[in-house]
């Protein structure tokens, strides 16, 4: 067998691996990530099929069912019990999943889109544009997260859309910094330098080299940001800044004023809280698994 043939055979024996297929393979073997996918899957199904799952309209309640006292806990008729207005908590939780999904998507979209634009501009052009954008990011970050959101809500007024936008805005600096850092790092990377030195056109460098490598941290951060958004909006809802109509089945809002009932009707506080924890946990598990799966350090080394 000639050396050339041996070499060809040796090269063939090494399995081809791109960044994505490698990552997917590792993700599949990560038990925590699998649990995460399962949880998120359940969450999404509940959100999408809410009208078919929930036995009642989440907004209408029948005070007569309360029997004078607040509030009946979980029973055979009402799986999660009833709330102060006689509404079925189970139905509210199910529809609440829709709200949480909406919240997550809107907030992250706001933060991601604006952050991507500013971050890319800052990273790609550098110079004084970069400095200005970075200063503005710093200023936004100098107000602690929730307080910034509160401030925005104060200016916009209270309501569901307002708190979604407020939380989205608080996420802008994070994505801006992330993408800028990513682009800067890849721009200066040796392999980009190598590509330029052999004359690869700028456009191609951007699409084939810089962008794919910058995207993975954004995907990881996006997933984690989804989890944070759900929690933050729930927090604002809990503070009473959310939807003005208390009938709205948003999980955070459902927790407002439930501390009074801890002695007599703990299910009012505990159940929405657990719902939040489980959904957020799912996204965090996935985000975490993605981060490990996409980490280039662990990529195949024979």
């Amino acid at each position, binding site marked *: 067998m000639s*050396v050339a043939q041996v070499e060809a055979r*040796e090269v063939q024996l090494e399995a081809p691996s791109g960044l994505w297929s490698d990552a997917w393979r590792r993700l599949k073997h990560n038990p925590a990530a699998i649990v995460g996918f399962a949880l998120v899957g359940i969450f999404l199904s509940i959100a999408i099929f809410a009208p078919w799952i929930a036995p009642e309209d989440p907004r209408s309640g029948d005070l007569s069912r309360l029997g004078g006292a607040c509030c009946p806990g979980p029973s055979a008729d009402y799986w999660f019990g009833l709330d102060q207005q006689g509404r079925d908590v189970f139905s509210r939780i199910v529809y609440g999943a829709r709200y949480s999904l909406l919240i997550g998507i809107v907030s992250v979209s706001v933060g991601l889109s604006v952050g991507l634009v500013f971050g890319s501009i800052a990273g790609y052009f550098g110079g004084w544009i970069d400095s200005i954008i970075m200063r503005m990011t710093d200023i936004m970050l100098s107000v602690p997260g929730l307080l910034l959101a509160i401030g925005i809500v104060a200016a916009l007024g209270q309501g569901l859309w307002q708190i979604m936008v407020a939380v989205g805005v608080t996420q802008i600096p994070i994505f801006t910094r992330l993408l800028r850092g990513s682009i800067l790092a890849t721009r200066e990377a040796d392999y980009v330098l190598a590509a330029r030195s052999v004359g690869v056109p700028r456009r191609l460098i951007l699409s084939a080299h810089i962008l794919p490598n910058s995207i993975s941290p954004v995907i990881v951060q996006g997933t984690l940001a989804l989890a944070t958004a759900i929690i933050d909006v729930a927090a604002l809802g809990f503070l009473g800044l959310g939807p003005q109509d208390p009938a709205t089945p948003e999980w955070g809002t459902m927790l407002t004023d439930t501390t009074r009932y801890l002695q007599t009707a703990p299910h009012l506080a505990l159940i929405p809280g657990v719902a939040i924890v489980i959904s957020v946990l799912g996204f965090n598990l996935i985000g975490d698994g993605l981060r490990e799966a996409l980490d280039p350090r662990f990529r195949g080394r024979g």
Partner: protein
Amino acid sequence: MDRQALLSVEDLRVEFWTERGTIYAVNGVSFDIAAGETLGIVGESGCGKSVTSLAILGILSRAGRVVGGSATFEGRDLIGLSDDELRTIRGKDIAMIFQDPMTSLNPVLTIGRQIREALETHFGMDRKQANKRAGELLDRVGIPSANARLRDYPHQFSGGMRQRAMIAMALACEPKLIIADEPTTALDVTIQAQILNLLRELVRERDTALILITHDLGVVAGMCERVNVMYAGMFMETGSAVQVFARPRHPYTVGLLQSVPRLDAVRKTALNPIEGNPRDMLQPPQFCPFAPRCRYEVEASRQEVPPLEQIEPGHKVACFNPVPAEEWQRMKDAVVAR
């Protein structure tokens, strides 16, 4: 060999367990070294030379395991010893010098502190005594204003000075054996020579045994009495420096020597790399590991692993079809000829 062997390694085998499979890093390595001797272990990156020394001292990474063989030092087999027992030998009787002095020194501790550590641990010296000794050591390795520099941090030293500091650290407890793993690879060429000279002086002064691990043939030629050539976790050829450099018998050794461009070669001479790629270490060797890249291979080369056998006194080769003794000289002459 007239002197008693200080360290005697016999059929050492080391494996690494990774998620891709088992890596057979060291596959039956045997050698001796006596007090005052300098032995060179030469080979490409990844051939297992560093792993050998780490295995002897018991400081392999988590994934590594010694799966066979022995390493007898002053009558005790290091392979079987517990970590506690090995610690009394590490740094005291056997010391190591590593390749990259920037990453091998703790960035948040002063140089003086790092030298004192070994003294305090092994000799129970107090701070004053240890400081004094550390200053003496730094001075001996050629660092000016040694005592003042004890208070400096590694990042305040230049590359060459850091390596000198590492040598001082290794010498602190007057070890009987020093293992230097690529001590000059990370340094500039001009500094390399200085460091090697320093090492040579020091081991001569103290009659210390020195194992010099490197991929650089030039370093070995200048420093070592004996040379072992390593490939794919095994020795391919062992002998005195003169024997191995003047009359290399293993095709790999010849290939290594040939691949070094010569200043006195005729201008249009092509470069002679060794063809092929380094061996895949995920398989245990079942036949001659160099066979796929070898011009001299014969049928037996693909059937079993050639044993290391004596070909002249003090000179051993692991090959079923060794290169004729005068071949290398002939090749050199051909290249220089007009």
